[in-house]
């Protein structure tokens, strides 16, 4: 048996080699895929909180998420076999005219690490592309990111486009440095989160999912 706390610690440190080998060892020892997954989900939750508290920063978030992603790849076949499926599906992107993607990437990673399937549309995504993706993937959740005051109106346009087309009523959440809760209310979005860790709490709350196992 592998001490899954060690796996969690490896993910927290962003130590991809240890995380992968511990995951493989746990798989080989026949440990339950759900438990292995939970250990990593918990670890990313910890990293998200530390980021929120300014104890770790963008590079540390990125290497932790990478360690988890690579370990999950090893676990994937077993998760499928055990019928463990993502708890929800989301699409996310940075809105039209805006090329900033770091914050959006962090939110995507944290959602993934909370076992939400995420389809990342990238940056500079037009309302039409959001709509097409929403029709194709039928997400429960749509995330819109904007970092520029000049591209905030593109959030509004995207929300309107999605609402008017009446796509299967996904929850739309928005974020990015200049965005506020007040703005979210004003344009009829369902929620706003100031950082990636809160974006997970927000998704769970809006989708009625239970909290993190940690």
């Amino acid at each position, binding site marked *: 048996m592998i001490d899954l706390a060690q796996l969690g610690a490896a993910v927290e440190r962003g130590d991809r080699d240890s995380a992968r080998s511990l995951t493989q060892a746990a798989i080989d020892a026949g440990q339950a895929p759900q438990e292995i997954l939970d250990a990593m989900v918990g670890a990313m939750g910890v990293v998200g909180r530390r980021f929120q508290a*300014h104890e*770790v920063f*963008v*590079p540390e978030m990125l*290497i932790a998420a990478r360690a988890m992603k690579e370990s999950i790849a090893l676990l994937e076949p077993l998760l499928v076999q055990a019928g463990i499926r993502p708890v929800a599906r989301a699409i996310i992107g940075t809105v039209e005219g805006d090329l900033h993607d770091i914050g959006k990437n962090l939110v995507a990673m944290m959602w993934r690490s909370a076992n939400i399937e995420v389809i990342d549309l990238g940056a500079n995504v037009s309302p039409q592309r959001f709509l097409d993706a929403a029709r194709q993937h039928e997400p429960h959740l749509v995330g819109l990111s904007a970092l520029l005051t000049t591209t905030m109106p593109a959030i509004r346009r995207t929300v309107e486009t999605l609402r008017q087309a009446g796509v299967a009523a996904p929850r739309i959440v928005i974020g990015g440095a200049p965005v506020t809760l007040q703005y979210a209310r004003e344009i009829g979005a369902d929620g706003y989160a100031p950082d990636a860790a809160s974006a997970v709490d927000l998704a769970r709350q809006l989708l009625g999912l239970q909290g993190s196992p940690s």
Partner: protein
Amino acid sequence: MNGRERVLALLDGQPIDHLPLMPITMMFAADTAGVPYGRYALDHRVLADAQCRTAAQYDFDYVSCISDPAREAADCGAKVVWFDDQPPALDEVDALLADKSRLRRLARPDPQAGGRMTDRVQAAALLRERAGAERLVEGWIEGPCAQGADLRGINTLMLDFYDDPGFVHELFAWVIDMELRFARAQIEAGADLIGIGDAAASLVGPHLYDAFVLPYEKRLVDGVHEMGARVRLHICGNTRPLLTSMGTLGADIVDLDYPAPLDEARQAMGPRQVLLGNIDPVRVLRDGTPESVTAAIAACHAAAGDRYIVGAGCEVPRGTPPENVQALTRYAQSTRF
């Protein structure tokens, strides 16, 4: 006292009549002059004209060459995305140094070779000519982290800190060599002061900042000082965890963006450091009223003390009401020494 004298006197610890006023304007300046931002970034004559008009209208103590961080990268051969009425940006998907082995073969652009860097050098010359001795002329270069990110791709650079520290050092050393040549050309053209923009530095924590970024920023600051010009350090974003280190650089002016409290900066950097900032550009300056702007800037001044320059945390956003910028002018001019 004219604007140039006022700023230089403050920096030299000489008496001043009132606080200097140096808010960063780019899109706001282009809008003030009624020109699309794409042209402002492309043509130094448009930029210089808009800067002079804006400075005259609001009685700023300086004019600046700042426009966008893509000038050096463009001359290095990076792919730049242009917009009609927005600053140009770099396309990270096609980052110039996506393959890091290219760094060894990459030629440093000559700031006088007729590219986008030359356009800025010409802006410095034209601003000197137009501003005369009345206003301070600010040149602009990018810091190691920002420029390294522009060449390598910012998401990739963030991983490089852990995956290949040697490469990051090599990259940053390469970058500052280029930036110092760029600074020299602008100073020779007439810039009194060089702004160093290192926006991406606020994405890393104090450990990486001290190990990778600070040493190269220090070489930039020292290099510009050796050329006889002053230095303004501008790192936008949340620099709160970096304040103590930033205070060791010896920059003549340290800008603070709104998430970094001025009283903490004063504490961390000591009584001599000239600080600039830091009202929230969007929530206070753009969305506030002259009254709320005045109250906010007075609070900044109180927190920073008198070795202080009036300005916002970052660029004055497009769409800021003129009367809110006038409130800054009025505040600066109402202070008496």
